[in-house]
């Protein structure tokens, strides 16, 4: 495990051996879909930034290469749009008083997620047809 990390120093979350053969998807490809991905992750239940990052990593079988700091601008945009809401957690043990914020999906966010899924299916159907690689 340690040896594998040393080969890949930029990996955000330590790549688990079971994911090592997955082809990676970098931030550039994710950028347009990150907000919908976060909504989908929060659909599983509320979570703070690190937890969202872990869930994204696990859901993507370790193939998503995303700087963890990049999550926050997307989370803030979602919050500004009213698609997610956040509340400060009470416990700060071990973090010198720095608190985490727990995000959860709003009703508007649930609707946006459903719309995002529909749009994605449409996108894949159309592009898959053009590329000759239907989903």
């Amino acid at each position, binding site marked *: 495990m340690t040896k594998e990390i040393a080969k890949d120093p930029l990996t955000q979350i330590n790549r688990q051996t079971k994911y090592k053969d997955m082809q990676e998807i970098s931030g550039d490809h994710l950028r347009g879909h990150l907000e919908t991905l976060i909504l989908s992750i929060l659909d599983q239940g509320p979570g703070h930034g690190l937890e969202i990052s872990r869930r994204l990593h696990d859901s993507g079988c370790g193939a998503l290469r995303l*700087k963890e*700091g*990049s999550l926050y601008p997307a989370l803030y945009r979602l919050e*500004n749009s009213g698609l997610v809401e956040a509340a400060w957690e009470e416990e700060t043990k071990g973090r*010198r008083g*720095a608190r*985490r*914020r727990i995000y959860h999906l709003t009703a508007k966010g649930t609707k946006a997620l459903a719309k995002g899924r529909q749009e994605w299916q449409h996108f894949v159907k159309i592009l898959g047809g053009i590329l000759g690689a239907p989903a």
Partner: protein
Amino acid sequence: MNNVVLNELTAHLAEAIGSLPASAARRQTMQEELLAHLLDIYDEELEQFKDERTALDRTKQRFGRPDELRGELVTAVPSVERLILLICGKGSIMWRWLWIVGVLGMFVGMGFVMPAVHQLRSADAITPGNRFGIGVLLPFGVVLTLLGLGVFGYSLHRVFRAGRC
């Protein structure tokens, strides 16, 4: 965790958030939340590698470069907030006021130009009745508009330059 680690992580964040065009409250929220995340990563890495320097370096790598993060965080600040800060924020007050003066100058100048141009277009000939409008107000309005435009452009340039520094 020692203070050196905390200071280094705080400085890493300050590079991204310190000059962000956002309200102090928003920056404070970002600072605390992102610091909590950085400290969580650091704890994970320290537990795995048992070395503070390695854990610190890996924490920064996982989190991302401050300049890239800053660029992305700017997009998360509402445009209205950025505009208000640009006009009412700290520093460069003189240039911001000049900017407003420039815009006002342009509007007032156009207020002279438009009626004079209308007179010019509708009149068959310059008569004593419209001579003042065409001969005096039109040049005055043009000069005022151009001055306003110049002041506006220059002050805008200074405001943005001050914002980058």
